[in-house]
């Protein structure tokens, strides 16, 4: 197998600061360039990453900071992004994933984060335990 085709993985640990939301989505966009994605595919993944990372900052760590664990796997033409936090966790995942559902107190959130992840990726899986944290895994086939 040539260097081109082997499965690859990138791991990042970044701080749950709102300014890292942009860094995270741009880093994933740069990394996935090797799949020769279309501009629209890059935007799709950037948006989904932005949603998941923003959620760790606001909801997982409630603005108090912490570490965001980001993993990007590339296997053939599929990209898998995992965003993990060790924050407060989600008591009811099904409810949390409903469109427009938000626990945001200041009312500026739309509750559409999970809907966007689902709209822009082929597959979204959420695992969470209250008090332990949340893992969001998203996959998408890049046709280019």
């Amino acid at each position: 197998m040539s260097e081109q085709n082997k499965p690859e993985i990138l791991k990042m640990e970044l701080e749950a600061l709102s300014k890292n939301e942009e860094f995270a989505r741009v880093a994933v966009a740069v990394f996935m360039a090797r799949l020769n994605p279309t501009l629209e595919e890059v935007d799709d993944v950037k948006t989904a990453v932005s949603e998941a990372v923003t959620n760790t900052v606001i909801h997982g760590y409630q603005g108090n900071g912490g570490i965001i664990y980001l993993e990007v796997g590339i296997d053939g033409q599929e990209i898998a992004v995992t965003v993990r936090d060790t924050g407060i966790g989600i008591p009811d995942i099904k409810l949390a994933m409903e469109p427009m559902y938000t626990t945001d107190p200041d009312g500026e959130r739309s509750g559409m984060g999970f809907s966007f992840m689902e709209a822009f990726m082929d597959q979204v899986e959420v695992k969470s335990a209250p008090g332990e944290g949340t893992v969001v895994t998203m996959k998408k086939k890049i046709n280019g």
Partner: protein
Amino acid sequence: MNQPYFTYEAEGQTLIVHLPEELDHHNCSGLKYETDLILSENYIRRIVFDFSKTRFMDSSGIGILLNRYKQMALSGGSIAIYGAGPQALRILKIGGILKLMKLYDSKEAAVTG
């Protein structure tokens, strides 16, 4: 990282909000406070959002639009949008915003209505 923040412009009873290049949670943080202040001190009948610099937007942008929509709906005012590029347009569509706010081709058209 250029133009990270909102800039505001008033034209009569219309408030024009120039959105940043990256319309995400980080860059949205000051908007609620700033627009609340402007709306409380001025008689504003219409808010026009200028997307012409915006290259990226996520659901945080939808949140701020929905909330301004509710504010203006309460006071009988209106909201308009112009300048949205392909990425923002997709987000605005999927986020249901285009059912609530009219999209215009230019600033002039958006202000006039």
